[in-house]
């Protein structure tokens, strides 16, 4: 199969890669670019572990083809901290133990950040529905919802 050249921007840097027509963006990120922060929990759009921002919208990267991202702006978990400085969501997730195994965490952080950019003051129910596409099997979600709210409050007063 022939490979196709694609030019994108990932976490603010221009990124060029070659991929096959049937390769998902998730496979491109993980296998071709070595960005293994996005996880594959299902490959069918049901778990959210592969969540990335694509042109400002949260997407399951397992459902997007690499070749579809020509010219796109992509943000992944690897771009969330600025150097040593964690994003407030990342820091509060640690402070409030909102992760156990942590494999859902990259996807949940990407999705939660997108929520707070749209809606800086969500209700618990809004957080729960926004994150309904992100499965976590370890925590029962309780500490995740609380951590998102703590980070939201912090970001509002910043």
């Amino acid at each position, binding site marked *: 199969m022939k490979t196709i050249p694609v030019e994108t921007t990932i976490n603010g840097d221009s990124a060029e890669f070659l991929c096959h027509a*049937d390769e998902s963006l998730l*496979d491109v990120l993980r296998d071709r670019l070595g960005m*293994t922060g*996005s996880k594959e*929990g*299902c490959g069918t759009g049901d778990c959210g572990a592969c969540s990335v921002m694509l042109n400002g919208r949260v997407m399951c990267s397992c459902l997007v083809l690499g070749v579809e991202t020509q010219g796109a702006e992509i943000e992944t978990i690897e771009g969330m901290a600025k150097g040593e400085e*964690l994003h407030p969501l990342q820091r509060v997730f640690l402070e409030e133990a909102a992760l156990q195994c942590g*494999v859902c965490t990259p996807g949940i952080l990407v999705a939660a950040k997108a929520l707070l950019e749209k809606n800086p003051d969500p209700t618990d129910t809004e957080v729960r529905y926004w994150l309904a596409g992100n499965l976590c099997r370890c925590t029962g*979600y309780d500490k995740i919802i609380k951590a998102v709210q703590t980070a939201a409050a912090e970001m509002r007063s910043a």
Partner: protein
Amino acid sequence: MAFDAQAERKFNIVGTRVARPDGIDKVTGKAAYGADISAPGMLHGRILRSPHAHARIVSIDTSAAEALAGVKAVVTGADLAQPEDEGFADVAINCLARDKVLYDGHAVAAVAAKSKSIAKQAIRLIKVDYEILPHVTDVDAAMKPDAPVIQEGRALETVPAGMSQNVTTHCQFGHGDLDAGFAKADKIVERSFKTAATHQGYIEPQACMASLGSDGRGEVWCCTQGQYMVRANCAAVLGVEESQLRITSSEIGGGFGGKTSTFIEPVALALSRKSGKPVKVVMTRDEVLKATGPTISSSMDIKIGMTKDGRITAARGELRYSGGAYPNATVDMGAQAAFAAYDLEAVETVGWNAMTNRPKEIPYRAPGAPTSIYAVESVVDELCQELGLDPLDVRLMNAARKGTLSSYGPTFNDIGLVATLEAAKAHPHYAAPLGPNQGRGLSCGFWFNFGGNTCVSLNINDDGTVGVVEGNPDIGGSRASISMMAAEELGVPYDKVRTVIADTSSLGFNDITDGSRVTFAVGLATIEAARAAINEMCRRVAKIWDIDADAVIWEDGCAKPAGPNAGIHPPMTLAEIAAIAGNTGGPIAGHHEVNADGAGVSFGVHLCDTEVDPETGATKILRYTVFQDAGKAVHPDYVEGQMQGGAVQGIGWALNEEYIYGTDGRLQNAGFLDYRVPVASDLPDIETVILEIPNPGHPYGVRGVGETPIVPPLAAVSNAVSRAAGVRMTELPMSPPRLLKAMTG
């Protein structure tokens, strides 16, 4: 090792909520899980699976796959050893079938190729000729004498003659005179229950990277709950020596018991041996659901007699579990746990295991206990309803306590059940008003907890920091807890200690991370290793001060003279002692190796409020509170996390999760869309109340906490739904169609 009988020991670090050592990597995407590493020249493996529930393999033709460009190796069951040990033999034929396939999804052959897509193409070119056999997936049907037999000659001697060969296990526990007990009852309720198999549902599929040379030396990187277990299984299945295999456990994306076996590592090693290249195998989600461990499915009969003021006079349970296509002993644990929460004069539990054409059962959090306790707690609730009694008062009246002869034999030591029930009774949740179509349910839960084989090495570094090396993968924050206990014992700050998980070549054998054993047993070994290092430091200081070793004591992280007779010496800190270790006898370390017992049983009580929709049969969880005895909560955040996570898995089991088989014996719902685990919008906050009744078998009083929380939700939710719907539910999951049918009759 006994609980330190210091009255009310004051802890400095244990019991606080420190940051976890693996945290930054996990929030930034740097942490390396099973599928996250690659090697130069690596091949991609993929496994061909049976589309049939039960069939004889007549022939396998791999020639077309081998001829495909980019394919470097193809293996079948013939490439694996045939271990004599039955347990290893089961692992081997489950990794790659030999004569028969035993369930839909059973692995048959595997390829290694230059890319994922070539591997995918190649397995389609493998031709397997099957002779289809009759199948059975239901436990009751599998026990019938004329049922299709899954495997012959697997029954234990305890199974009476004349039963179906599918019946492999029979067990019986109890004491007292049942007939006399039932004769004393004012009311007897007898009910039958069924529960569906559920999957552990870890978000990270099994993944590994393996390489094996023709000299029998190999390396495996994999997500597992036990690297030593992987080593033993791989050595037996490949026919190589354990010393030649080095297994490294990656960060693990959830396990819950489901990663206590091996499915792909031996296959990857076989592919690597044949191709001469490292091979990575990553399961897809549908492979995970079809071929890795769900828990048991069950069918159960429970009979309980009660006086009109609420005293249980006799109780009997009969459990029929199926752990899929292989023998297993999960029903033993279910039978032992069933009535553990009660102080009973007459009790009997009988258990059976029967093989079915389903994947091999793998432990899932408190294996065996959630289902049997669900059935018992449902009948107790029904008796309370019928007799007009408060269900908490009835449980308090009958609760097991210190000195109770348990239903499975041992007499209980200090246990926290009564305190836990009292906490539930005093909690505002129990008194909160309920609206129409709403109901409140409660249930007790129990788990044995395990200790087991454990090794810990603790090194005092020359800069005064401390390294702990342990051998159990961290599935829920255990590295933090282990560092905390080391720091507590040594009297140094938490951030001076770093705990790492060893590969199999760097530390002696450790049992798998199971049985809620890590914080208990590794914690205990860590404390003992720290004490060994302290003894050594005191000995070195005694030499420097030129006094007897027992004249030096350890206090607040320093060696001090024991009393005025020991002379006047300024205390020496750990860092000071470490800095000059080279002059006092060399490096300082402590070790401890133990087969730990005294794990201390654990009890929990859950309260659940639900609302049912009479038009759709849908259930909403309105409020949920978990009460549990943790002995001593080393890191309360992670104890709460275990309580919340376990409760929600149990809620999923009660309401949605289910292995659905078609009449063709094939799994109908092998994906997260149709196998529906709870999502954030399904749930309320999960409130938690931790009780601390010290475990007499641990120096800090710690009990395992990880498994008990999945036990009570099945009955807590079912009792709440039954009360809300006005109809007694006896089958799980209570999915909307099933509940609607029960409500509309």
